[in-house]
């Protein structure tokens, strides 16, 4: 009997796992279960070019139908995995069907965190996670309309940039004292705040939304004691890992299904990859990442382990965001660093900030400075010690720094 591999979830990690499993020589049966009507697609363009309307839906899909046929991978779409029965090695679908497995890969991703204030259920309150969300949003993305964006993170700010381009009036409400506080350092937050303000976005920091009001649909927001008129609300306040299938079956989750360096959960027959997992990062502490890189790489490492060639995961995480003509690229994790080095001039809209820990480079944030990002990422992987003085000296070409 051929080995049965079941993948729950149909995102970036799932698509990569199918490809890598076949590349690594796995010859068992592969079945992929997805809740959406679509096979795996790229999410990053959703809040950018797809929302703007310059990128057709067809282009979002990561693989062609022929790919799954050739990979002999069965796609079960519009299917929700409801219960995991570990003792029987079966997954029960919402429609009652049961699918057996020898090996299970959980690639369940995340779901949006919902706003809880009064009025959050009104018509006109939108979230941005999947194709259907953006298709709805696009219908009302009309010049002159007023959009209130709740949350000044990547999603909120990317939508703000597209909305400005579309001629909407944009207000961003952020509860923290700076933008993208979870993802970037303060100088980068401040640089982007200035750019959004210059583009015409009204930025309200330290301003939590208290209520959304309207007669059946969104008409205004109350925030920081003031009232703001709005035609629509877009909420981007983070995501939560879809770990219930795992936890209800007794697998450990700490804001993310706990996996080891091979991507394996506490059950030797069950792996997990992507945004839904918490793994031991290369710096030794447990971390849950929300990024394409981690989805791709964890899927590759799971495939290696499943194919009997396990390797320890220790990739440098990387992230990017496009806002206006600014490309923000980040590698590494800047937490618990003790020294930041600016290279380049923010006024030229092209610079990088390197973050060091005990003299060793731990993270880089670059804006329109791809070479700094690429080299920074390489140095992080090498745990390279760099002279901060040389790094800051932009008269020395970046390739001659180390």
């Amino acid at each position, binding site marked *: 009997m051929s080995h049965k591999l079941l993948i729950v979830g149909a995102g970036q990690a799932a698509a990569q796992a199918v490809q890598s499993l076949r590349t690594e020589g796995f010859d068992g049966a592969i079945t992929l279960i997805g809740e959406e009507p679509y096979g795996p697609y*790229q999410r*990053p*363009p959703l809040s950018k070019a797809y929302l703007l309307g310059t990128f057709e839906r067809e*282009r979002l*899909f*990561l*693989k*062609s139908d*022929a*790919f799954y046929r*050739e990979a002999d991978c069965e796609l079960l779409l519009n299917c929700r995995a409801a219960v995991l029965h570990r003792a029987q090695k079966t997954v029960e679908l919402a429609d009652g069907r049961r699918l057996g497995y020898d090996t299970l890969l959980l690639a369940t991703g995340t779901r949006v965190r919902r706003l809880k204030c009064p009025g959050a259920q009104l018509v006109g309150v939108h979230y941005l996670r999947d194709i259907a969300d953006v298709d709805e949003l696009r219908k009302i993305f009309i010049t002159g309309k007023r959009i209130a964006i709740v949350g000044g993170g990547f999603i909120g700010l990317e939508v703000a940039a597209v909305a400005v381009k579309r001629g909407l009036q944009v207000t961003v409400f952020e509860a923290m004292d700076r933008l993208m506080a979870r993802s970037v350092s303060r100088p980068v937050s401040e640089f982007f705040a200035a750019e959004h303000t210059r583009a015409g976005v009204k930025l309200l920091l330290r301003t939590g939304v208290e209520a959304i009001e309207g007669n059946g649909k969104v008409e205004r927001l109350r925030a920081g004691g003031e009232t703001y008129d709005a035609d629509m609300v877009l909420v981007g306040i983070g995501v939560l890992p879809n770990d219930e299938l795992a936890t209800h079956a007794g697998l450990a989750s700490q804001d993310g299904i706990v996996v080891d360096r091979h991507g394996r959960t506490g059950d030797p027959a069950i792996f997990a990859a992507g945004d839904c997992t918490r793994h031991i990062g290369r710096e030794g502490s447990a971390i849950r990442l929300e990024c*394409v*890189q981690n989805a*791709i790489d964890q899927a590759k490492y799971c495939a290696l382990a499943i194919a009997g060639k396990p390797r320890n995961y220790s990739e440098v995480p*990387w992230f*990017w965001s*496009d806002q206006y003509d600014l*490309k923000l*690229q980040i590698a590494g994790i800047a937490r618990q660093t003790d020294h930041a080095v600016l290279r380049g001039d923010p006024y030229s809209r092209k610079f990088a900030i390197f973050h060091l820990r005990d003299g060793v480079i731990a993270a880089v944030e670059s804006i*329109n400075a*791809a*070479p700094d990002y*690429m*080299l920074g990422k*390489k140095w992080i992987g090498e745990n390279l010690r760099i002279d901060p003085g040389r790094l800051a000296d932009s008269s020395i070409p970046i*390739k001659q720094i180390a």
Partner: protein
Amino acid sequence: MAKITFITHDGKEQTVDVAPGWSLMEGAVKNHVSGIDADCGGACACATCHVYVDPAWLPALPPKTDIEDAMLDFALVTAPNSRLSCQIRVTSELDGLVVRIPVSQH
């Protein structure tokens, strides 16, 4: 549709139809051409969709932008005919284009 031929490092040829407006990278990835990773999905953020363009076709291509040039600097074993396939938009004029894929993208 433009017919694009990809040749892998071991000489395997694959000709695929790519819709005008799509990038060369998308044409490869969607048609399961192996050897083009394109980890970032076409954002010019990873340099893992490197190809060598048949020299005869180089003049037909749009010039490299600064960011493509900068990113290419970090691809493995580049040559004067190196391009990032995510940055080449396919048009009917590129019907018949031939590109070669490097041994590795990482």
